[in-house]
């Protein structure tokens, strides 16, 4: 599983907080986040193993983004703990948060290369400017995600799929071992989504652990090792077949979900996004 190429491997051990072998890459315990007294997350506990790929699903407002941000260490939990390789997230820069595309100012005057180069600043530290080796590594990351030819483009010239690839390239440049992706598939057309899934397979080969939020239950079943069903509380976490039971889905989605028998299984049709009545 852990097949990092040499430049990645040599840098992994140097700057990061020590990774204790045998501990799960991520351990979340009793995580609670409240905004103005309202619980966005309530007592969430789970572990992630290194190298696995997990889909987080749940209706709008279920706390998917909040969970990813708390794990990234961007949001301080109201209660509970998040540990990465046995340490608080503050000790690590090997966690990458890939933002929702709508959260980014695409008119900002930066090129694709500039954005991916940002991934290097954790390794550089203050008062040091990126050198040849950083640029070479940025190029390698861009090639890995297949957008090396777009390096000099301003970011608003990218398609949705390319935008997502750029942020994954930045996470690679950051040498992230745990990537948290906030709805990377939302708003992408089918070929672009397939491209991202191919990229996820490449990341699996590199041993990168993935936690990805999505609205698409079907894709969650099809492409991920484990799925997490979330609606403020953790309603289920495990193999898709064990988690996506009609009872649990009804608890998570309430009246917004309709279950229909199909090909001996169940097809869930329901609230996808935007809280509207899209069926």
């Amino acid at each position, binding site marked *: 599983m852990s097949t990092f190429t040499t430049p990645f491997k040599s840098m992994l051990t140097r700057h990061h907080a020590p990774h204790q072998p045998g501990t799960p890459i991520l351990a979340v315990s009793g995580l609670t986040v409240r905004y103005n007294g309202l619980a966005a997350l309530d007592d969430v506990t789970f572990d992630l193993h290194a190298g696995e790929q997990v889909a987080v699903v749940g209706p709008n407002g279920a706390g998917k983004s909040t969970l990813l*941000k708390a794990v*990234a*260490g*961007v949001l301080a939990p109201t209660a509970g703990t998040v540990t990465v390789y046995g340490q608080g997230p*503050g000790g690590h*820069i090997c*966690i*990458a*948060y890939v*933002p929702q595309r709508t*959260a*980014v*100012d695409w008119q*900002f*005057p*930066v*090129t694709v290369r*500039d*954005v991916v180069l*940002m991934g290097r*600043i*954790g390794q*550089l530290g*203050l*008062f040091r*400017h*990126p050198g040849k080796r950083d640029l070479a590594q940025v190029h390698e990351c861009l090639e890995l995600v297949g957008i090396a030819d777009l390096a000099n483009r*301003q970011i608003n010239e990218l398609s949705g799929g390319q935008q997502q690839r750029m942020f994954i390239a*930045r996470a690679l440049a*950051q040498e992230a071992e745990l990537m948290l992706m906030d709805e990377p598939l939302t708003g992408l057309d089918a070929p672009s989504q397939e491209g991202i899934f191919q990229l996820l397979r490449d990341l699996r080969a590199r041993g990168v652990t993935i936690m990805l939020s999505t609205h698409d239950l079907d894709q969650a079943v099809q492409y991920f090792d484990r799925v997490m069903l979330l609606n403020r509380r953790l309603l289920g976490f495990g193999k898709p077949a064990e988690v996506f039971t009609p009872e649990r889905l009804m608890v998570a989605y309430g009246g917004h979900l309709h279950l229909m028998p199909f090909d001996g299984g169940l097809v869930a049709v329901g609230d996808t996004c935007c809280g509207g009545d899209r069926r």
Partner: protein
Amino acid sequence: MINLLDRLIAPLQYPFMVRGLLAAVMVGVVCAVVGTYVVLRGMAFFGDALAHSILPGVAVGYLVGGGARGPLFWWALGTAVLASLGIGAISKKTKVREDTATGVIFAGAFALGIALISTVRSYTVDLTHFLFGDVLGVSWGDLTLIAIFGGVVLLIVAAFYKEFLVLSFDPIFAATMRLPARFFESLLLVLIAVTIVVSLQTVGVALMVAMLVTPAATAYLLTKRMLPMMALAAVIAAASGVVGLYLSYYTGVASGAAIVLTCTACFGVAWGIQTVRQRG
């Protein structure tokens, strides 16, 4: 041809004109560089409010010093730094939105400044200088202060260029990189404050926001990376300073207004270029 050259050289026989040109160029460069962040982070209103809020500090200095100009720089600097750091605290502790809080506090401060200055009999002339600048009244001492403080601002921007870039583009990413976001946010506010003080005598309180925003916005329309945007903004601002001052010399228009109008004209041209580009 000779006539034009004469016209360019003639004003330079006046030392006040030379000092004014130097001030306009230096102020333009510093404002453009810091203004890049103001434009990209949507802080134009903050910059405007901060400039206005300096007035009471300047007024107190003016009253205490009996109208002496020398110490005003320091009074302005102290007020600006306090105000820039205070706004964060104020907006976090009130229920009203940040821009509303900014408007309430800083408009009040501005009124206080006017009230204080109006207690002096000869106030109209001095108030006009504070509001709209008096670039031709810049002394060598003022120029030295502009050079030192402007230089420090530019050095700090250069030193933390990549941190400010990341923080402006993607604050969540900056947080995952464990950048001390609070420190850099405050540092940026102080940089804006110092820039405003440095530019006070050139364009004045009321026109300040134009120097911060217009050249940077012009460059924003024409570039696709941040460093070229800063560089182009600096060139536009410096050139506008020179052109504006000559215009002021030959037409008798107020210098601050002439400089700002030149910047605005540049923005209009860039807007036109960009519109043509998009259609083409």
